[in-house]
């Protein structure tokens, strides 16, 4: 397989994730779309690591997975808090920071 096909898949996955972020307003779905985008980038890094024959891309994928885990933990705690305070997961409703 030419490595470009892997890049194509990850480019499409990233675009699908971005479209999801733009289209959906549910906070949990937004989070899942961000996960999609992170995974698309991970796939690019792994494919590039194979292309250039070094492990550095794989190490970066490893770190991205760690950061994603931390991000999901904190983000879901925030979402739970938001839901208990506001009673909704609609990201358009909380406007505390709007002036």
């Amino acid at each position: 397989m030419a490595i470009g096909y892997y890049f194509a898949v990850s480019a499409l996955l990233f675009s699908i994730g971005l479209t999801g972020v733009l289209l959906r307003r549910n906070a949990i779905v937004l989070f899942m779309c961000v996960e999609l985008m992170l995974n698309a980038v991970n796939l690019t890094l792994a494919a590039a690591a194979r292309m250039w024959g070094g492990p550095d891309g794989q190490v970066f994928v490893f770190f991205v997975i760690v950061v994603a885990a931390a991000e999901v933990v904190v983000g879901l705690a925030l979402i739970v808090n938001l839901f208990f305070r506001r009673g909704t997961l609609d990201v358009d409703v909380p406007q505390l920071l709007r002036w």
Partner: protein
Amino acid sequence: MMLLAQAVEAGAGNTAEAVLFWVFAVLALGAALAVITMRNIVHGALMLVLNLLAIAGLYLTLESSFLSVIQVLVYAGAIMVLFLFVIMLLGVDNDDLLASGPTTRVLGVVGGALLAGALLFAFVGPYTSPASECGPGAPATTGDQVSCAGLAEAYGEEDASGVAFLGGRLFTRYTYGFELAALLLTVATIGAVILARRRDVAPEDEDMADVDGDLAEADEELAEVDASVADDEREG
């Protein structure tokens, strides 16, 4: 048809990889589309699990079996269980919150398509030539085109999965990054515990906390409340 024939001819040595790639790629893209279109969030989360598993399969075809295992364990296992747990804790599995108006929707799809086109144009084009074929039957570098190096050489003979190589790199060149990741995970755990603590206790409970947690008194009050509730029920 010509393209297909060319592809078959070029990939005669790695037909298995091609088959696996197409299966997992279609699976990943279809599941990703399902994630952003499903109205039921639980179904969306399950589709995301499918997508992550398909990406783990793509890692396998990329000679990165360690990443594949990590993907299944951490992403499809731990992270998605957390997602499903929160969805079910909040009981919000079936609300539909798409973008506000049709204008926003159209703009969102157009933006996504534009990004897809730009990415495909910039990153995919240069790497679809036979020179960037990987695997056993890969041609050598020709002219200024970058050829695929593959990972077999870097891994060496006795380390077919690449775990030892990856671990060596992780603990030598990227030691600081590794330590920072450990710190980050600790901070995230503490932050999640603090954030997830419920602070909106009922007013009576706050008063009780002021008298330094007199539990016996609280129990008495609870018993009284229970008794009165039972009385109310009996009367009403």
